[in-house]
């Protein structure tokens, strides 16, 4: 999927506040979000700061998206357990999957191996986007997140968004 289509799809799905920390897998998407004012992308200094920002934006009436690399999931775990899940704040996480299949730089291998387990023990539903995924699957996943009022994570492998 093209990065512009992906960002516009998020907007069309009702998301109206974007923050996060970049990953090369999301490189073009985050450049696009930050250069187009209608997305209101705020660059965060850490992924946990992004979770704090998104939680505040939710309180103020927005539907926020937090974009990050899976390394940032490690940084975010306390923000997720002791803020987002504790207070029941519904966020839409977009997490890239570095280290997928054990084929990546060494620093990504362990998080790549355990990322889904971390999300599973936190009870955060995931949808893994693949090259064959279509737009409707993202739209439906976003609908489910809204209807259930929960935090969910969309997982992106390398090459899915180009």
């Amino acid at each position, binding site marked *: 999927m093209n990065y512009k289509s992906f960002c516009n799809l998020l907007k069309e799905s009702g998301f109206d506040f974007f923050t996060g920390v970049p990953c090369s897998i999301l490189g073009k998407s985050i450049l696009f979000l930050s250069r187009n004012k209608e997305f209101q992308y705020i660059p965060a*200094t850490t992924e*946990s700061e*992004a979770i*704090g920002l998104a939680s*505040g*934006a939710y309180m*103020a*009436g927005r539907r926020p998206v937090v974009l990050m690399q899976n390394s940032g999931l490690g940084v975010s775990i306390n923000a997720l357990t002791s*803020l987002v899940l504790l*207070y029941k704040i519904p966020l839409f996480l977009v997490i890239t999957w570095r280290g997928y299949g054990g084929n990546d730089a060494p620093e990504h291998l362990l998080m790549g191996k355990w990322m889904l387990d971390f999300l599973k023990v936190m009870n955060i539903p995931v949808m893994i986007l693949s090259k064959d995924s279509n737009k409707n699957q993202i739209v439906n996943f976003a609908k489910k997140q809204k209807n259930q009022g929960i935090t969910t994570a969309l997982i992106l492998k390398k090459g899915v968004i180009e």
Partner: protein
Amino acid sequence: MNRYEAIETIINCLTDEFVIACNGFISRELFNIKDRPQNFYMLGSMGLASSIGLGISSVKTDKKVIILSGDGNMLMSFGTFVTIGKISPRNLVQIVLDNECHESTGGQETSSSIVDFTKIAKSTNFKQSKFVDNLSTLQKVFTFLLKEEGPSFLHVKINKGTKDLPRISIEPPEILNRFMETLHLNQ
């Protein structure tokens, strides 16, 4: 001045402003001094009071948002000075109650004694940046900051010391719900 007196002075200057109180004794003391639906008590997520407050103030630009952090919270999220400065919300007031220690966990010292927070705030694009170390000046300066265009920063030097107070008795989702209901009134 101790933290209890400082929080009491701050809260008595407020009418309908929104307060994000960081985890630990700051939330607990605020709850016991004056519980109000405009208070958001952070129980965990240490370091995130500033980013939660920034998220709210960047969207609800017509509501005043006061962030009450301790020195431990502020040092943990130093980067948020920069994010606040970049977004520069006019309606945000960041307060640091600085007793140079992590009092909630037994008084272990932080390294805040070497930090000039007001210089940090000035260099990260805060419009106002003030320091106070006594109650009468705190009241005067905070009242001034409430009227000024922000983002504003206030460094409050306080003594160590706490009272034996009950914990916050409201469930976290209820803290959130009543805060949001009040925030969305009169739209």
